[in-house]
């Protein structure tokens, strides 16, 4: 099972935190800080795995990847394959790229909701749902269309104000 997904920048600021089992906010922040400390001490071109026993308990592993200024981190247990997780991370990033065209950190910063939407299409409750970035992008497009249409069809109060 995937335990969590974290995206943070190279300063250690979290951009996305999603745990699939409830974690209190303080614990989340603490985990982000400790993971950042580990990641920023690692050189380039080394393996992408980190032993996280001390942070998250035995048998929990952590894989990360750097994309420009962002660290993508997947936390998972022994029911997942390490290399498959790297692939899944690639799928996630590819999807972001498809949805935002040349994704950069700012996209992730300002699209908190959409990022969650994308992630929810890939992983649900810690289980991998979809591994094709194409499919995910299509689903996300469909939802966005739905939201737009719905908003235009049912004008809300604030829409009327503006």
């Amino acid at each position, binding site marked *: 099972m995937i335990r969590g997904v974290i995206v943070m920048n190279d300063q250690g600021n979290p951009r996305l935190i999603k745990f699939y089992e409830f974690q*209190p906010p303080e614990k989340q922040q603490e985990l982000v800080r400790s993971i950042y400390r580990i990641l920023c001490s690692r050189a380039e071109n*080394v393996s992408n795995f980190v032993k996280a026993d001390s942070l998250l308990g035995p048998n929990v592993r952590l894989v990360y990847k750097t994309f420009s200024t962002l660290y993508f981190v997947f936390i998972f247990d022994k029911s997942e*394959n390490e290399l*498959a997780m790297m*692939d899944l991370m690639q799928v996630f990033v590819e999807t972001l790229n498809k949805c935002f065209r040349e994704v950069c950190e700012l996209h992730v*910063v300002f699209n908190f909701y959409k990022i969650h939407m994308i992630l929810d299409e890939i992983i649900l*409750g810690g289980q991998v749902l979809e591994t094709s970035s194409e499919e995910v992008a299509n689903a996300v497009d469909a939802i966005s269309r739905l939201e737009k249409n*719905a908003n235009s069809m049912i004008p809300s*109060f604030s829409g009327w104000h503006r």
Partner: protein
Amino acid sequence: MTGPSLMDSLFQRSIDDLIKALRLTPPGTEAAFVAKAIEEIRREIRSTDPHTKASALQKLTYLHSLHGLDMSWAAFHSVELSSAAAHSHKRTAYLSAALSFNPATTDVILLLTHQLRKDLSSPNVHDVSLALSTLSSICNSDLARDLTPELFTLLSSSKVTVRKKAIATVLRVFEQYPDAVRVCFKRVVENLENSDMGILSAVVGLFCELTENEPRSYLPLAPEFYKILVDCKNNWVLIKVLKIFAKLAPLEPRLGKRVVEPICEIMKTMGAKSLVFECVRTILTSLSEYDSAVKLAVNKVREFLSEDDPNLKYLGLQALAIVAQKDILAVVENKDLVVKALSDSDVNIRFEALRLVMCMVSEDNVMEICRILISHALKSDPEFCNEILGFILLTCGRNYYEVVFDFDWYVLFLGEMARVPHCQKGDEIATQLIDIGMRVKDARSQLVNVTRELVIDPALLGNPFMHAVLSAAAWVSGEYIKLSRNPFEIIEALLQPRTSLLSPSVRAIYIHSAFKVLMFCVYSYLKLNGEESSLPSTLTDSELVSDVELDDHNMIVTNGQAPSASSITHHLTQESLLALVNLVEINLGPLAGSNEVEVLERSTNVLGLIKLIKPMLLGSLNDCEGDQTKGELKASETVKMIFDSCSEDLGPVSVNAQEKVPIPDGLVLKENLDDLEEICGDIKLPVLTSFSLVRPQFAETSNSAECQGKDESELSTGSTSLLAEHRKRHGLYYLSPGNTVTTSNDYPPAHDPKDMAIDEDEDLAKLTEKSLLTGKKPSQSKPRPVVVRFDDGEVTNAATNRTEIKAGLISGAVNEVLLGDEATTSSSSRRKPPKSRRAAEDSNVSITEYKSDASKIDQSEHSKAGLGGSKHNGHGKERRRRSSGKDKEHDRKDKHKSDSAAYGKHRSRHRADKAVEAQAPVIPDFLL
């Protein structure tokens, strides 16, 4: 706080505005900014306008998720907004719920039940998806119970997206509400035959999680999994199926035989590294008895290790670590690559390689491996260097130096390790130096050589990490001084000016060691003189003579080994000894004013001794007269006494030794010692402890006790008188000479065969028979030295039996569904497989009663929590309650059930009346 006004809605900041403003906030003022934003949100969120409310909730969720702000107060607003008509508002509401609700404590979750049910049955795919994803995040037992019917419907939805999301959600529902298994499991199983890869992947993933606990329950599904393994070409699905087989194969040998071939086939033909690695791991963990498969897997591992990709290298090493537990040869074959990985730039890889290298250590190669490792330690960064040293010390020291055959080498090696520039393992090295000194008699002479090098080197004193090693070295030098070639040299080293750099406690050991060396020199001198001028025989009682002879013998042995070492006797002229005494006096004189208690005490001891012996030395130098001879006699007697006390062999002490000391009769340990305080006044603990260190032997003759008393009195005359008073009051000593001599001194004198025999009765000490047995290497020219050890559990290697937490409830229900199903379909006369009917829910149990139980299960079912105790409670209660309400039909079926692993524990009383049926094969024979 006022309610939201039109103005608020009009000029509300959107989430983008908030993020922008937050990014522009100067560092340090963020907290204030966030506080202000929260205040705004609190106002806005109460708006009746869904858009305003949604915006506020969006902002709040953002701050909660990424800035760790509390939003539990807004839980109800999430619930409220979830019923909004617009999908985007609904999404906002559900996301905030998924990110912030705590399934165990957020009580408004229940209010969400209705809305979730509505959305799960919605015709809109996206609403359904949203509800499913929310449900899997916040699922508790109540939600799971109430929404099981909807989920059941969705499991056969015609829409692929919905169906696979429903399958993924089922896992959480099963965890929270095991009875859902009875409803949904069949539909889940049906999906195993679906041709859509998305659905298949989801359902296989679900089984991969479920088999984590109680895999035995899922054995009946093996044919389905086997079909997928053979037919499916999707890597994701195959990886999960392999993981399932890794858990099932060890339970059923015939299954392993069946799957090993397809797995090898996949490993050979498939290109995806992730899949190949999974095959390798499956074979190495679960199919290790198939040699050809293991060979193939190890070959693949070798390929991984030779790759440039650090990830593959790392995983390859991890795979080797799995093999290492069963077949160390496979690791040895790849030694070259493993050793190469030791110098990899990636610390992960280096660490794994190090672990593997240490797995390979045996008696035959320990020297070679240690040599390689230390050369790596010398050129790696401090952290890894210490990692290596730590591993070496741990491995070599394991089980009383099991792998070490040549202690002379190991002792030298310890010295070498201590000198590694980044070494911070001083404490461990020091412990082993002393430990080997005590346990391995044959290693002592080399040990003394090694410690001499350490003590004599002034450069080492400047390195604080070395101090622990130096203190051990100083202790060894003093303790085994009779094996030293040149005691004078040692004493000079122990007193060198740079010892002022040492910490007081280490320095005290230095001074005490110097004391022992000095004693040794004086004693040797006296003995020499005694031989020449034949001292009056009144001095030597029989025991002393034997001791002297023994020492003599030892000295001769060492002298024999090194011809130049006869210098001990050579050096020992009166002049040289006097010079030595003067040297000690000059060096220690200033320390008598030290404000460190330990240093002060030790140096005062030495100075006191010098005061005693100096007249004697001077006297004999000046060609003594009558009364001076008398003084000399007395002094030499004292020297002998002290020397004997120092030369007694110290043995290792078992960690349990203290418990074995019987409390002497008449010693009241629990007496209130409050009035002692009056007597002692402000002099307290230090004095008492210093007294209790007196060797019991001293007290044997009142004569020696007096000497000791004299010695002590140099230190503090006042305290002894107080002690004397105390003794008089209680009429006993802390260690009364009578009983405690034997008891407190109970550790085995290290290498005395006579005493060994006695001690064996007491079962305290035993020689390492095992190590002697395993040491029968024909290549070894000399036998392994004896290592003293205890068999009374000195090492507490009690394997910590982690109580396995298992989802008994789920597997019970699974058993029921699977096997009940099979029983009706299969027409064979085969005996009915094990069945767990107990889990059947009874209808006459009231809902409220159930709730309290369910919340317990909810806690316990969380596999992450270490709530073993409460889990069992939950189980027990559940069982009892259910069994009480069992109806007749279930009773009948009970007759057929047999024990199924841990599950049976809870039902033991039910099957007590009938014979335990043997476990029937659960996989249909047509597969196997």
